[in-house]
């Protein structure tokens, strides 16, 4: 009981936390709570796919399916990424964060916005799914426009929080702190987006980089995030206009928007998350973790930087692989953007994979620490998921894979759950003693349960969903006659391992910090220092 209240050995002292440490921990705890939402929703849907059960109705099922990826991505992943990067920017650059207040607003807006759109879906059953193919989100014969308006409001708040995050990242990169020599903003920005590394490939005398590589990855990913935020905000406003008009009794014509053009627009923006910032942020996090874990310089650093720059071209021109089954989409876009540019991701992500492994390998023998084992799990996840994506981005194969469980199983869930999430857990385990001023992990056994249940559950679920997809099971659908039950039962079993992994991790975290400590994280900091960690 004492450990539950005060944490392992009472080592966590929340009174000594700096404002930045508190913000980071708030993001982490909130991210885990929303991850819990996503896992529980996922399990409800897994069971419902096997056998529909009351009180969940079909409409409720699709409302959960709509909220599930958004709660997972915005509520959990965005929170973890924002918390980690807002801490790492000043940690690596040795500059104070540009605005702690803005960081706090980012936290509030993402947490509140996620709860609003989740609640809107839960109450009103607004369920256009995240694809939002026009005019489905404005189809008021199936959905209540009031519920939809709250849903969009929630998303808009998350996007506003994202804008604040981006302002903080770019401002921290470019501003000159008091007492520092005036910084050359253009040169820093060029270095940060990987342009310096790209030019270095062709120089005999390599120039020194102004920005550390992990910072370059954060900034480079933030460029895509900025575009993506703009697209989602604009799309939200567009849908909101239709909804507000419907609420006041005016039905806007459905033909005002071209459905295919909208689809291209939407996927161009949305792919900047999936193919842009996820891959880039992940690559940057791998580089950071590899160098921090090993204490070695990154292998092939110039290539890694140049790849970040090239990935900018790739992530901006890759969207058409989502429209390969759209017959009105021009064939040239399907081949060049859909197939060829997408195949380039195999190269950029493969480079990041190899560079990280080679850096780790160069430091042998290493102790298998918690950050290292989760990093290896994350690398495995992407090694499995990226080729699955390349396969479905093929003109021939897409015809029989598009919108099947294959897409969401071996590609999306393995990439997000195993690749991305395990990479982020690696960062959490690495930063844990730094942001908590040396708090002790309660149980190494629980860490091991977290690791093994998560990796086997994530890969297993992806595999069984993939098998169902190859046998014809569609995503975003229901099979009430149990046509694919064998795969769905096995996927649900794997999903339950993910739930066990989450519970083990969450319990371990609470026992490490103590309930009082977790509550204290959300109170105003007593330590008013501008330092990142107590001096």
């Amino acid at each position, binding site marked *: 009981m004492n450990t539950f209240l005060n944490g392992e050995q009472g080592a966590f002292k929340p009174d000594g936390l700096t404002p930045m440490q508190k913000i980071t921990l708030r993001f982490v705890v909130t991210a885990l709570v929303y991850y819990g939402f996503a896992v529980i929703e996922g399990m409800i849907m897994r069971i419902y796919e096997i056998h529909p059960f009351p009180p969940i109705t079909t409409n409720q*099922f*699709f409302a959960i399916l709509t909220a599930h990826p958004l709660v997972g991505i915005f509520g959990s992943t965005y929170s973890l990424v924002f918390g980690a990067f807002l801490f790492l920017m000043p940690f690596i650059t040795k500059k104070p964060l540009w605005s702690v207040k803005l960081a706090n607003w980012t936290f509030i807006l993402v947490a509140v916005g996620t709860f609003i759109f989740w609640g809107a879906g839960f109450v009103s059953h607004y*369920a*256009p799914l995240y*694809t939002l*193919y026009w*005019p*489905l989100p404005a189809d008021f014969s*199936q*959905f209540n426009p009031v519920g939809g308006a709250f849903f969009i409001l929630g998303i808009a708040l998350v996007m506003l929080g994202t804008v604040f995050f981006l302002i903080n990242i770019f401002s921290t990169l470019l501003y000159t702190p008091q007492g520092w020599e005036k910084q050359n903003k253009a040169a820093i920005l060029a270095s940060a987006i990987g342009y310096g590394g790209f030019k270095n490939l062709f120089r005999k005398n390599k120039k020194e980089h102004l920005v550390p590589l992990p910072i370059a990855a954060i900034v480079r990913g933030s460029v895509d995030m900025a575009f993506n935020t703009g697209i989602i905000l604009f799309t939200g406003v567009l849908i909101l206009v239709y909804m507000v008009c419907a609420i006041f009794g005016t039905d806007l014509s*459905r033909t005002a928007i071209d*459905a*295919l053009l909208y*689809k291209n627009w939407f996927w161009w923006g949305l792919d900047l998350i999936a193919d842009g910032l996820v891959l880039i942020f992940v690559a940057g996090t791998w580089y950071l973790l590899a160098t921090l874990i090993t204490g070695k310089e990154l*292998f*092939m650093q110039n290539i890694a930087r140049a790849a970040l720059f090239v990935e900018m071209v790739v992530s901006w021109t890759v969207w058409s692989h989502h429209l390969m*089954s*759209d*017959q*009105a989409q021009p064939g040239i876009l399907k081949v060049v953007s859909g*197939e*060829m540019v997408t*195949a380039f991701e195999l*190269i950029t992500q*493969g*480079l990041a994979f*190899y560079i990280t*492994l*080679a850096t*780790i*390998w*160069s430091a*042998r*023998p*290493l102790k*298998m620490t918690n950050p290292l*084992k989760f990093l*290896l799990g994350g*690398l*495995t996840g992407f*090694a*499995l998921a990226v080729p*699955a994506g*390349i396969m479905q981005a*093929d*003109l*021939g*194969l897409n*015809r*029989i894979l*598009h919108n*099947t469980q294959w897409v969401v199983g*071996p590609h999306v869930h393995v990439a997000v759950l195993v690749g991305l999430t395990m990479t982020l857990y690696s960062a959490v385990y690495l930063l844990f003693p730094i942001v908590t001023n040396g708090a002790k992990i309660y149980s190494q056994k629980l860490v091991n349960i977290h690791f093994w249940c998560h990796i086997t559950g994530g890969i297993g679920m992806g595999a069984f969903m993939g098998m169902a997809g*190859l*046998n*014809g099971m*569609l995503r*975003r*659908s229901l*099979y009430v006659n149990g046509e694919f039950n064998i795969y769905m039962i096995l996927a649900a079993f794997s999903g339950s391992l993910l739930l066990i992994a989450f519970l083990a991790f969450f319990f371990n975290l609470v026992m490490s910090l103590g309930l009082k400590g977790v509550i204290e994280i959300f109170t105003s900091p007593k330590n008013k220092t501008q330092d990142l960690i107590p001096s």
Partner: protein
Amino acid sequence: MVDSGIVLKGQTIAYTFYCIVIILLMIWFSLKLTSSGKNVLTKPGIFYTFVGFLTVLGVSLHLITFNTIPWAPLDLNRAKIKPDKVFTIVIENHQFKLPSEKLMIDCNDKVLFDVKSNDLTYGFGLFRQDNSMVTQMQVVPGHRNDLLWQFDKPGIYTIRSTEYSGPKGVFMIVKDAVVVKCDDNVKQ
């Protein structure tokens, strides 16, 4: 024409093999990481060979499938190919409106499915009796959605929407709507 079921089997074998190799490789890497040894991975030659391998793999995958999966070139060149039969289908209010109760097809005919949506974005997919997919396309309102397909085996296929169009879309199924006959024998 090669059946899509054969392509799916090939893909299952290839991807399963790849996954087993990668997982074993990562296990081996993790085990070796805790002991000292030669540092071969950081040799530039190996790195550049790996990059070259990825490049060849990425490009060759599409070249191989384009030359072995017959519906890929058929689809890209469909505007120049005269179909043996055309079925015009309309979708409205989550309902398929077929030109006849059963769409009858003769073996080896090139058939064009011309599907129009009058409201939402839907999908058009053909499924075998065991629920596996034969082919599909998206059906976008305001645009032409045409799928050219050649059937070289007898069979009875179900039409199902392959795109989410709200909860009502789940029930967009027309069972046994497409019948392919070869020499007057219909097999399932």
